[in-house]
């Protein structure tokens, strides 16, 4: 069906308007031209986001100069990890999981239907890693040592954190390779584009391996907190839970991000893809719904397996039930229903609920169900500065995304020479 629609699009011979970059000075002039803002600067979004970002940057400098304690974060000896790890890193990485799932579907399973959104998704994943996982620099107490695990100032090769650190690093490279053809098209580098294009499948396979391991590796970090995490959440199988949940977390993010991009950058997308887009949403909703049901089932099995059922009748138990019913089972059915009725607004709504559920789930592991038995006075909640810095990181990522989408052929058609190329 999709193919038929595509056929109706007339491909006219385009003028080759890609830049001719011969040497470094050409590149600089091109980059200077591209760095200039385009269009109206004083949009409401810019006006709101800019002050938050600037405030965030000031706080970041302050944090690097003054250390992690109050007033910047509310972290204490009972809660070494807070919002920056729990939301920025752990949740951010889960949301970036859409990239490897879609890569698997498109490049390995060859489901060409989803090809239209692959570039945006990979870009989104790459930026998520760059910014959210990059936020780890802020959270790390001795950030000037961050290169130590890379340069071999003692390799803790048997540490889960060591694996996660290396996988983050390598996965960012893999995603950069996956996205690089787009950059080459933007720069008009035809030969490079050809070479980079041929690297894609290798990068995809490598990237999926890495994703599988570090999505679950983030959970394996918490595995030694055995007696600190509430028994309803702790199981030795949390790595599997994290991996499965990253599938629908990532796809929900793709749905969410895609529907916003389609509104904002609608002018870049041609008619055929607009129509095609509902098909893609329905397909993604189906995958989500299946993955979520599997996840829910797994949760129930583990609940019984860990003998945690008696804990259900307590405030922690209600919170757990809200998480797995309200934020997994309900959106799972909404996805299924939406896919059946081809109702995209239900799908989008379900995606938002799923995302909130994932945030709650990841925060549960880092500070809500972690050390749950300490008295209220010692409990952790995010400090205002933590929230503002997090917000400014997200906004910066959105700005970067917007800049790239407006300049590179992410949503729009690649230049004609690239389409001809093979």
């Amino acid at each position, binding site marked *: 069906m999709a193919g038929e629609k595509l056929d109706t699009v007339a491909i006219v011979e385009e003028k080759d308007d890609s830049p001719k970059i011969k040497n470094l000075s050409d590149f600089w002039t091109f980059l200077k031209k591209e760095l200039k803002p385009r269009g109206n600067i004083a949009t409401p979004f810019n006006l709101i986001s800019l002050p938050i970002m600037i405030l965030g940057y000031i706080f970041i400098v302050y944090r690097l100069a003054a250390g992690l304690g109050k007033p910047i974060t509310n972290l204490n000896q009972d809660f070494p990890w807070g919002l920056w790890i729990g939301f920025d890193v752990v949740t951010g990485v889960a949301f970036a999981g859409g990239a490897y799932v879609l890569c698997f579907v498109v490049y390995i399973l060859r489901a060409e239907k989803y090809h239209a959104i692959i570039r945006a998704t990979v870009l989104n994943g790459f930026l998520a890693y760059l910014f959210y996982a990059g936020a780890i620099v802020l959270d790390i107490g001795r950030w000037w040592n961050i290169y130590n695990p890379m340069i071999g100032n003692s390799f803790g090769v048997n540490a889960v954190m060591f694996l996660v650190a290396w996988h983050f690093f390598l996965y960012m490279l893999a995603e950069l390779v996956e996205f690089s053809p787009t950059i080459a098209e933007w720069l008009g580098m035809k030969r490079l584009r050809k070479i980079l294009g041929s690297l894609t499948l290798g990068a995809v396979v490598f990237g999926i391996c890495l994703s599988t391991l570090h999505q679950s590796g983030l959970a394996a970090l918490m595995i030694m907190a055995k007696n600190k995490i509430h028994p309803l959440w702790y199981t030795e199988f949390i790595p599997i839970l994290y991996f499965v949940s990253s599938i629908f977390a990532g796809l929900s993010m793709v749905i969410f991000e895609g529907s916003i991009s389609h509104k904002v950058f609608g002018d870049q997308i041609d008619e055929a893809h607009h129509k095609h887009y509902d098909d893609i949403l329905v397909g993604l909703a189906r995958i989500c719904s299946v993955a979520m049901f599997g996840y829910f089932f797994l949760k129930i099995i583990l609940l019984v397996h860990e003998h945690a059922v008696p804990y259900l009748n*307590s*405030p*922690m138990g*209600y*919170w757990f039930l*809200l998480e797995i019913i*309200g934020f997994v089972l309900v959106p799972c059915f909404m996805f299924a229903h939406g896919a059946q009725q081809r109702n995209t*607004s239900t799908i989008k*709504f379900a995606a938002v*609920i799923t995302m*909130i559920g994932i945030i*709650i789930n990841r925060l549960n592991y880092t500070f*809500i*169900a972690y050390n*749950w*038995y*300490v*008295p*209220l006075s010692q*409990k952790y*909640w995010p400090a205002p500065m933590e929230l503002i810095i997090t917000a400014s990181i997200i906004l910066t990522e959105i700005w970067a995304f917007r800049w790239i989408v407006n300049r590179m052929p992410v949503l729009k058609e690649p230049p004609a020479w690239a389409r001809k190329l093979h």
Partner: protein
Amino acid sequence: MNRKLIYFLVSIAYLILIAIGLYGVYTVEATLHVKETPVAEPQNKISIAHTEIFGKLERPQVIFDHGKHVEAMKAEGCAACHPVKKDNVISFDFPKKVKGKSKTDAMNAFHDECIECHKKQSSENKKSGPVTCADCHNKKNDKIKIKYPIAEFDFSYHDKHVRKLKEKIGKDDCGQCHHFYSLEEKKLVYKEGTEESCYYCHDLNKKRGPELTAITKVSAEKGLTIKNASHQQCLNCHLKYQKQGDKETGPTECIKCHTGKYKTVEELSKVSRPDRKQKDRIFISVENSKMKGVPFDHKNHEMTSKTCRSCHHETLKACKECHTLTGKPEGNGINLANAYHQVFSEHSCTGCHNKNKQTKECAGCHYAIPVMDVDSLNPKKDTCNTCHSGQKEKYSAAPIPMSSVEKVKKEIEIKVLENEYEPSKFPHLEVIKKLVKISNDNKMATYFHRNAKTLCEGCHHRSNISAEAQQDTPPNCKNCHMVAYDRKNPNKTRLLSAYHRQCVGCHDQMQIKKGSSFNFEEGDRCGACHKKKVGGPAEIITMKNDRVVKQNTTNIINVWHPE
């Protein structure tokens, strides 16, 4: 259909759920610390819960006001609620009859009897009780815990009963209370001179020998636990005399017996013990035994025990009836030597003596002395002969004369912590005099501490006098305890800790406030023994590569800082 409105409402619902959930999670009381409900004053009330039948209760327990019911049913008497057995003996059980064995049967029995009676009363226009569920199963009751302290029928009560009954009946008739179940005749019999404790047959919690097990089985079948049996025995008799108008009769009210107050051994020592024709003095000597006989003052030991059961744990027979030289099944395989000497038994001689050594007067010295164990310590001949004298006549213990200790050093200066503290002055003579007094005041101590030198061993422990060349003075602390911490031999107590553990340990055990580890009221715990020198650092001495190394505490800075 307004889809947007639905989404909006669902979102609001989610927000509310998150807020409620988070509130619950953040204010959750950790289940690690469960609060115990405090035990309330009984006030003749009974908590009816029977978790042994019902398990976890569906509704709150019932707090039953027994006193009020007795008052209301004065005319009808106890039989209104409690079942009457043959010979008009009331069994103080409730409810009267349970049809089956299931939970529902038990529950119905309670409900039927309580509610029927309440209904009947109100139909007769009398004051009546509740008939609806929550009036009895009140939620407030969950916070109440009622537990009656065990009533102790001690020797003073026994004595009183013997005298009063003799006045009433005119002769000694122990059979009024004491009985024995004959397994052949299958009924209760009584023979003079065989009286024993109720606990032997009615305490169903304890594992007994073969003969008693057969009897306790019968008790169990009849539901005669120690509680039921005592209530039946005591109350029926008390009620009988009450009906006869005897004003002096025993109590029938719960809290009158279950007072929670118990008499001490000292208080009971004025009361005469039950006469069962037992001998005052016994010479314990067993044929074929390797040891010489022991003259045993039975009467003395009667006075130092609260019950006969303290020693005669299963029957009132002599030890050797069950514990033979080689042991037999009736005595649980425990042979006679162990029956007398088992250190951790409550019924053996050594065990009981050891327990006495843990009282605060004795523990000061004895907490540091290993318990005597015939198996492990290779006791000296003198130690054994203290009891095993082989003479029928008991050794008449004389108190230690004060004059014998006068010649010891009066005061000793200890200067181990000289750099940090002023020397500590130890009132040597004063301490010894106090110990002599404690020993002389105690019968058992007087018997075993036969001369003043025994008391020295409390502090100057582990000296081997026969091996020492200088036998006239006991060894000093520093003869054995090193000043330095020996890395090669870390278990050895160094001089500093030898003093502190000996002194502080004794003060702790004897609950002497001055210089004990827990008393902060005096302000300066350390100052009780040694005043702090101004600005003086402590000196620390260690062994390093077999050389003594001295350092001051201010010099121990040795920063391990990778930065």
